[in-house]
């Protein structure tokens, strides 16, 4: 091979390489990778479990978490009403469970004879507003509905035989504590997250 041909070959190769030098591949470095507007793929996020207490971000608004630590010392013995500290402090939920729905087809709603006479349709809207005014605490109505479900769950499991009245009184609390003891849960007499889970109750 003549010298001139060798030169031609060399020049040809470097020209071929030239475009690569300018390309982002060639000068990629860590700094660039980190600074680029890289965002995690939204589809790769773990599934969000709606409405179950097992979800990472779930907050049991009914459980009065703050009082737990004070009772953990005398956890396993039945101590009447000592597990009950009034007034109960609810932690406000971070999620917008109680946001009133956007009004769609509202003209039809109000014109609906069935929902107009039944408290559910119109009443729920005003209730939603009430939630907003009281910083998203569970309304007394919702709480008594949850208590009823707890009473029914305890009844099915033969821990409770009293009235399904939605009142978390001594009888229900005693049943709850007995169930907690048998289930290896701290016997607080409260509707806390582990207890509701053990009863198979998902809160809204």
């Amino acid at each position, binding site marked *: 091979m003549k010298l001139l041909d060798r030169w031609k070959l060399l020049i040809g190769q470097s020209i071929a390489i030239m475009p690569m030098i300018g390309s982002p591949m060639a000068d990629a470095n860590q700094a660039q990778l980190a600074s680029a507007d890289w965002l995690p793929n939204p589809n790769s996020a773990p599934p969000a479990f709606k409405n179950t207490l097992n979800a990472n971000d779930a907050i049991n608004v009914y459980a009065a978490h703050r009082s737990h630590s004070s009772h953990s010392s005398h956890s396993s013995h039945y101590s009447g009403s000592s597990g009950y500290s009034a007034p109960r402090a609810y932690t406000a939920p971070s999620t917008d469970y109680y946001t009133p729905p956007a009004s769609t087809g509202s003209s039809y709603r109000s014109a609906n004879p069935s929902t107009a006479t039944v408290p559910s349709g119109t009443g729920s809207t005003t209730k939603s507003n009430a939630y907003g005014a009281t910083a998203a605490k569970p309304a007394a109505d919702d709480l008594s509905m949850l208590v009823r479900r707890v009473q*029914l769950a305890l009844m099915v499991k033969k821990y409770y035989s009293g009235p399904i009245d939605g009142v978390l009184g001594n009888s229900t609390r005693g049943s709850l504590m007995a169930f907690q003891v048998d289930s290896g849960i701290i016997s607080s007499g409260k509707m806390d997250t582990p207890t509701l889970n053990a009863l198979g109750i998902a809160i809204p």
Partner: protein
Amino acid sequence: MLRLDTQFEIQNVTTPKLFKVITPEEFVSKGTASCAGEASFDDLMLWLEESSTDNLEQWLSVPVGGFLLPSYSDELVSVSATLLTNPKDPLVVRPGDVIAVSPGSKVVRVLYRRGANSNLLFMTDRCNSLCLMCSQPPKDVDDRWHIDENLKLIDLVDQGTEQLGISGGEPTLYRDGLLAIIEHAKRVLPEKSLHILSNGRLLSDPTWISDLQRVNHPNLTWGIPLYADNAADHDNVVQAPRAFSETMAGLYNLQRAGQKIEIRMVLSKLTTGRLPEWAHFVFRNLPFVQHVALMGIENTGLAKKNYDQLWIDPADYQAELNNAAFFLDIRGIAVSIYNLPLCVLDPVLGRFYRQSISDWKNLFIDTCQTCSATHACAGFFKSHSTKWQSRKIHPLSVDDLKDMQGAPNETA
């Protein structure tokens, strides 16, 4: 086949009302969360079987909207909530269903059946066409109450992916109601796909475009019937002058609004003759459609009256069907064949075949008892009669099945 209504002994109903029927177990674990949308205890009806007898008194004290006692007689129970006892057919209403009751009537209608393949938001009995083969002849009544019922129904159905149909009648007749329902479904049930059956004629009004773009449902398909490649034949089938051009304009407006479109064809003596030309027309003029459904005729309603005009043995149009299906398929348009018994179908069309007849109106006949393909076959409509039966109906063997693989898809 399971009916969508039955009779109960009913007490304490003062207004027409919808209920979500749930078992005590589901009530305890989920409460009102068993409904996809906003619901209160008043919307729930507890299903109390004999297993709940021990605690019947306590169950009946729960402040829900009603109780359904499938195996008790009503004199045993006294409550102020709505009470349903003594079902005529105990299989019609099951836990998870949404039912409708009205004062002064023993009839309970199932509006939503848990796990069914054919749940439907029924919009109206009215229609602006009068198709010769209409399975549900229109009635000229003001039934706008269906709009409210459907809005409530959307709140009470189960969560989860499945398809909900919207049908009638002609759903676009109640334009604002239909748009409100689509919007409400998008908010409450974004995971469910919607399938609207419409003749598309009113969609020729271009103001629909902005409305549909505003609603912007993520998974909505319009099933629009087009019965011919020319106005005369189409207008004859739907018994409405100018229907063809209105429907074509409506189809273009749907495309402008970015909607998913399915073209539907009902196979009859009036339509199968020009099926290849029709397929050509669809591909040339509507190449944007997602899906073409070629459907066997449902032998009920007006179809019975127009038997002579409509009836053709499916065995006699397999060549045209084959031609049309493959013409569209090789040009990239998805094709399905609905509502025909598998044994009359040209075996090479097996991959277009769908097991399509809604579970509440589907049945098999005596010939099918020895057939090995009933699990893959659409079977017959409940209205089936020998007059509408192909001479090619025969039991299939396992070997026949190897040649064709049906896939379950949507329903008619």
